[in-house]
């Protein structure tokens, strides 16, 4: 009996000691919700089902990237646990799922939720609660607003900036251009259009001879291309997501129209757009980019691209190596890992934001010369792009890195 008592006392003492030790250790570490010594829990929503499900390739790639990070020991010894939920590309479900991630799963931050409308729907909620809303999966300009939304940060160059890059190139290379614009009637199209017109400045009204919009629900855009062609335009700015962009380029070719064509970055994938359109029909088309395209022979022997290929083979074997979203998801996950590593043992939400607004480095799959750079007043990690022209079977860069600011 006495011995039993002594054993109990010893256990209590040991427990107290253990608690004390832990408190001491924790003094060096600061953990926000979802963080322990062995795990960092983060969340996101993705359109795994529904009309935009083709975009969820990036979500799959991100999970595959963290699988590799975890297999190699995690970030500062902590495994990254990405909870990726389906929102069906429907903003009300994005809100519901994000609330679940924040209030029941207790994630540290929200990472790369996909879609302009989806992110707009959760932006206020996350900012009101002070939860990092990082590297949103949309290029819409509204997500770069540090004054009103200090917890929200974008990732890819914003659409208006890209529009400006094309406008400046036209002003410099073809100042007397007559421009026809095909644009998708949604946030994406409007953002590009606004940036493009801003880039042309006061010459916009004189240079743009015809604008034709289309809805994503329209089966074909032949009618719009014919109208643009008959306007006499000699430059065509093709603001369309892959399917319509490919249809437009093919129709332009079939009607014998030969304008200088610009196609937006997200529709410049060789495998998803250029090849289905027909390589012979897209010669000379101009676009801009910031990521390496692993299908481009120029990167055949690039060590970073080879590492990407190994990762695809080992951790993302079901993914299509021709889909640029696999590079996109890989690189944006790399960025988050760099941020988490930079946080060290202070994984509070405040410190995450402090670190994320203080970045300056390059990433392996970004084009050489393009850097990730942020400051407390600049929430655009990537601002530079590289103009490129389609020649033969690949994109050939020209004119150096340009700033879209």
């Amino acid at each position, binding site marked *: 009996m006495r011995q039993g008592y002594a054993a109990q006392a010893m256990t209590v003492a040991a427990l107290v000691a253990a608690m004390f030790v832990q408190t001491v250790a924790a003094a060096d570490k600061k953990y926000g919700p979802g963080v322990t010594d062995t795990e960092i829990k983060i969340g996101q929503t993705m359109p795994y089902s529904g009309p935009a*499900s083709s975009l969820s390739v990036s979500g799959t790639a991100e999970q595959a990237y963290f699988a590799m990070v975890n297999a190699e020991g995690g970030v500062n010894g902590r495994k990254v646990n990405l909870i990726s939920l389906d929102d069906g590309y429907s903003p009300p479900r994005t809100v519901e799922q994000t609330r679940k991630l924040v209030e029941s799963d207790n994630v540290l931050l929200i990472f790369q939720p996909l879609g302009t409308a989806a992110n707009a729907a959760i932006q206020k909620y996350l900012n009101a609660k002070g939860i990092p809303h990082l590297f949103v999966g949309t290029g819409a300009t509204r997500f770069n607003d540090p004054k009103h939304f200090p917890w929200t940060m974008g990732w890819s160059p914003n659409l208006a900036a890209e529009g400006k890059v094309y406008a400046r190139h036209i002003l410099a290379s073809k100042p007397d251009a007559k421009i026809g614009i095909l644009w998708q009637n949604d946030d994406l199209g409007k953002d590009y259009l606004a940036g493009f017109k801003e880039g042309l400045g006061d010459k916009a009204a004189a240079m743009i001879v015809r604008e034709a919009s289309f809805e994503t629900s329209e*089966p074909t855009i032949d009618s719009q291309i*014919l109208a643009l062609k008959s306007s006499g335009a000699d430059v065509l700015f093709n603001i369309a997501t892959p399917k319509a962009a490919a249809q437009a380029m093919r129709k332009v070719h079939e009607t014998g129209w030969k304008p200088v064509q610009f196609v937006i970055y997200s529709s410049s994938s060789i495998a998803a757009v250029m090849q289905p359109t027909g390589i012979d029909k897209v010669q000379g088309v101009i676009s801009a980019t910031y990521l390496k395209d692993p299908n481009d022979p120029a990167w055949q022997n690039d060590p970073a691209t080879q590492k990407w290929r190994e990762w695809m083979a080992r951790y993302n074997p079901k993914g299509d190596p021709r889909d640029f979203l696999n590079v996109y998801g890989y690189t944006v996950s790399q960025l988050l890992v760099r941020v988490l590593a930079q946080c060290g043992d202070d994984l509070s939400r405040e410190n995450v934001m402090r670190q994320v607004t203080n970045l300056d480095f390059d990433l392996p799959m970004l084009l050489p010369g393009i850097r990730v750079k942020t400051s407390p007043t600049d929430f655009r990690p990537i601002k530079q792009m590289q103009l490129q022209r389609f020649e033969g079977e690949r994109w050939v860069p020209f004119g150096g890195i340009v700033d879209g600011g």
Partner: protein
Amino acid sequence: MDILLQQIISGLASGAIYASVALALVMIYNTTGHINFAQGEMAMFSTYIAWALVTAGLPYWLAFVLTVAVSFAGGVLIERVVLRPLHNAPVMAIIVVFIGMLLAFNALAGWIWGFLLKEFPSPARAVATGTPLFGGHDLFILIVTLAELVLLFLFFRHTSLGLAMRAAAQNPASARLVGVRVGWMLALGWGMAAAIGAVAGMLVAPIVFLDPNMMAGILLYAFAAALLGGITSPGGAVAGGLIVGVMENLVGTFVIGNELKLTFALAIVICVLIFKPSGLFGKVMVKRV
């Protein structure tokens, strides 16, 4: 003037697409009395089968015939397995099944073949037409659709099987009394609609590219076409498709702007349903909607 002509011809080309899908809708309506919301997705799925066959190295026409045969069998199977238990169910239940099939086929195609756009071949793409106004494939769609129409007409008017199928749809009880196997007639109707849908998919894919959401936009226009022409009339469906295609181009380019083109298709659907539910070429001939 030039642009007017261009828009009319381009409208006829897209109208032929709507017509080919509308034919499948009419087919299933005529034989079962239902409107199949999954028709577009079934056609898309068939087109993937054709694509897989062509990619595997089969010549186009062999792949074409095989796809039509497989789709026919698939249509019969769907009717026997999925819809047969619902023969006496309320319309709502059947609509729910159709919508479920729509989602299932879409997800299945994405799961099997991925979401990247795929180029689909056309035997007539390279055929020179001598004018930039329309391409060889546009002509091909129109010819195939009209040929289908003639075949359907001959089948329903001049074969006893066609007569039995019409009887089974219009008056199942009497048909059964005179010895028509109504259940199998319905299954045959499904098979034929699936086969016509497969042809439509293979005609459409070279224009809009093949992807799991290929039919989403087209199906709505096909509904408009089928309703405008009269949901019971195959000829009406083709005429309706061409009218919708040309009207949407003209109205979109010269009158209301492209933003409202889709609204225009919906307006057609609503106007027809309100003012003349039997459509232009339905049982009674009418002047205009």
